[in-house]
């Protein structure tokens, strides 16, 4: 009970500070653009400092394609850009130097069917996150479905190893988390944050993630090192299905940092809306 109330207070504080931070950061962005007008004609080669400023200034300020007006605006403030960029690079190295080799080795030893069973197992365990999130969004049918899935997969699916609810009952997982729940209440992202190891997020989604962790049974395994170890294993297992995706994406983009930020908020927007 204490944990839950701590979570609520913490996230409320985070969100309030995020909103003020996001608002106060806009004047900074305006001053930057005024300064730029006084500069000489832009140099053909942009210095890295200038590039950082433009990346920060143009944090995905999208405009409608005016002919048809069907394009939507997605934007997020990026006031802690230097930190985020550094974390992006850290995560990039982490993937290539640690996560990918471990995951590749793991997947060469463990057959895909077993890895899928493991994935199902962990997914089954995180039912509370989906159940509570669906409930808080008043998606009653989905919440009920999550319970049915848990019951059926845990029994007929042998401890959640097989997703028989999808196969036999045609009831699919409804991916919801607390970050999406907050979004459905109209709470904005605040600003963009890239966490080491965890990847792109925002103030709102971080608050949600903290709540998700509190609802995840794995978090309560003692000692903490074991809990972290289990989470790491889950991560390695999940990555084993996606080796090559990150590399392909990097090859296809011109600015990976901006692309990732943009993809993150587009994706989250869609998740909130569905």
């Amino acid at each position: 009970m204490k944990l839950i109330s701590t979570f609520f207070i913490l996230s409320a504080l985070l969100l309030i500070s995020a909103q003020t931070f996001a608002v106060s950061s806009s004047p900074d962005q305006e001053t930057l653009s005024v300064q730029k007008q006084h500069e000489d004609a832009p140099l053909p080669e942009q210095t890295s400092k200038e590039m950082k400023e433009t990346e920060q200034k143009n944090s995905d300020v999208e405009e409608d394609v005016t002919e048809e007006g069907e394009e939507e605006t997605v934007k997020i403030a990026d006031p802690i850009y230097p930190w985020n960029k550094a974390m992006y690079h850290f995560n990039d190295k982490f993937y290539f130097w640690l996560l990918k080799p471990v995951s590749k080795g793991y997947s060469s030893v463990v057959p895909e069917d077993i890895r899928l069973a493991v994935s199902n197992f962990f997914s089954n365990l995180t039912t509370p996150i989906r159940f509570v999130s669906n409930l808080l969004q008043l998606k009653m049918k989905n919440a009920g479905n999550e319970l049915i899935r848990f019951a059926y997969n845990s029994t007929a699916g042998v401890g959640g190893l097989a997703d028989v609810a999808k196969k036999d009952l045609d009831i699919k997982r409804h991916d919801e988390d607390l970050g999406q729940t907050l979004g459905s209440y109209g709470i904005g992202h605040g600003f963009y944050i890239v966490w080491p190891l965890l990847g792109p997020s925002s103030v709102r989604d971080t608050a949600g993630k903290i709540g998700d962790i509190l609802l995840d049974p794995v978090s309560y395994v003692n000692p903490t090192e074991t809990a972290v170890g289990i989470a790491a294993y889950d991560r390695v297992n999940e990555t084993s299905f996606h080796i090559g995706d990150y590399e392909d994406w990097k090859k296809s983009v011109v600015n990976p940092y901006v692309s990732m930020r943009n993809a993150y908020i587009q994706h989250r927007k869609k998740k909130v809306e569905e």
Partner: protein
Amino acid sequence: MKRQLSVLSVIAVLLFPLYAYAGAPLNAVEVHVNKVLDVLRDPALKGESGKKAKKEKIRSISEKMFDYTELSRRTLGQDWKKLNPSQQKEFTELYRTLLEDAYADKIVNYKDEKVIFGKENPLTEKTMEVQTTIVTKKADIPINYRVILKEGAWRVYDVVIEGVSLINNYRSQFREILANKSPEVLLDTLRKKVGKA
């Protein structure tokens, strides 16, 4: 009774063109996607040596499937006007090569996943969204193709994967460059990128 039947048949006849119209975008996408799938499943093109041939064939299919001019224009949006016609032409070419390489690289690793064609959603008068799902062992991935009707054919101008619009994503990247740099810098960035890839 007879009169009701004739009224119904008149209505049916009037509605028929609408029905045929509604099927056309999905048909267009389905035809091209199936062609790509045929190439991917071709037993004669197996293995590493077959990959190159597969990529070539996929490139020629995507040329008919995508409207690259529309794609380029919509990606740059307001910034399209910053480019002069010859720059616009080069941009379209470079962007197209970038996308084709990315698409071909990704899809050539296909391994018997199923593609399910779903609904068509009208977006505007000339555009529609065709929903498809790729069923992998791990998950169902929603991929939506946005198509536009030009000169009697429906062609793709945007691909939305798990809610992420391709042209929206590239727009954010190109805008970051064009905000303070000339179109020539953008073109040069693309030239280097495509030359390397």
